[in-house]
């Protein structure tokens, strides 16, 4: 088992990657995941997803389809087998 992280939209385009998988031995937080991603993607995700230690307005982080705003924000727990989805929502019209 592992944690699947999927990138969509601009994240996928910029990184030329549709995602990454991590083996974890115990639950991690969304913050921990962003640190892991930063190591593999040269700091890209903390730049895109974080602002002054909180989630940047206009960034979506879903754990198994649920927005972490409705769980415990950056302290939301990610368990073995979970899927994390990251994308910048399209706001215009």
């Amino acid at each position, binding site marked *: 088992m592992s944690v699947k992280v999927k990138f969509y939209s601009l994240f996928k385009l910029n990184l030329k990657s549709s995602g990454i998988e991590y083996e974890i031995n115990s639950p991690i937080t969304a913050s921990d995941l962003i640190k892991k991603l930063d190591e593999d993607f040269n700091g890209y995700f903390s730049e895109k997803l974080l602002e002054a230690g909180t989630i940047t307005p206009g960034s*979506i982080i879903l754990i198994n389809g*649920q927005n972490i705003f409705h769980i415990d924000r950056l302290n939301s727990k990610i368990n073995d087998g979970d899927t994390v989805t990251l994308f910048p929502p399209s706001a215009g019209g």
Partner: protein
Amino acid sequence: MKNYLVRQKDILSEAEEKSLENLNIMIAGAGGLGTNQAVQFQRLGVNKIYLYDYDKVELSNLNRQICYGRNDVGRYKVDAAADFLNYFGLDTKIIPCRKKIKKNLDLPQDIDIIMDAFDNFPSRFILEELAVENNIPMVHGGIEGWFGQVMNIIPGRTVLLKDVFAGSENDKKPAVISPAVSIIANYQVVEAVKIVLEKSDILIDKLMLINVLTGEIEKIDIKR
């Protein structure tokens, strides 16, 4: 059947055709998404389109808002859009509503489906509250650059926009380009038609993410 709809006869059953001809749509926002949706619903032969917007046409709208030209700059969008659509002499009734969408707004009682054609999430969340209060399905669409998303909100049945897009509010004015706007608007119209016709493959608790440049369409599971 209206005589100008003869070419869609083989695509829809008689009952489906009737459903569309009786359909009353609310389009919230007469911008890029809304003008494209209005054109499509009119060509589908729906009964009525309530078009909501309180803004006037600006020059910067003309790259994607297909009901307006240079001569419309300064006019109320809903009036200019109604003139544009009525020019075609088709049977769909276009009802311009020069109103801001706000909480507790009284909606016409005969609306069957609400189309999100806004350009920001705070307004969309208010629209969603109205949809839920009035128990009317709503089809969300958003566009930024070459990327867009579509999602259905069916009160009591699906995840809500505020569940998935909490934290999406920001002050940026997204870059928008006409073909991508049209594609997202058209997918929204297709979803609306599918909801009305009770097709089996409606987006339920799924978010459709569209990359217009690569042609990739991905559906991701979403939950409350």
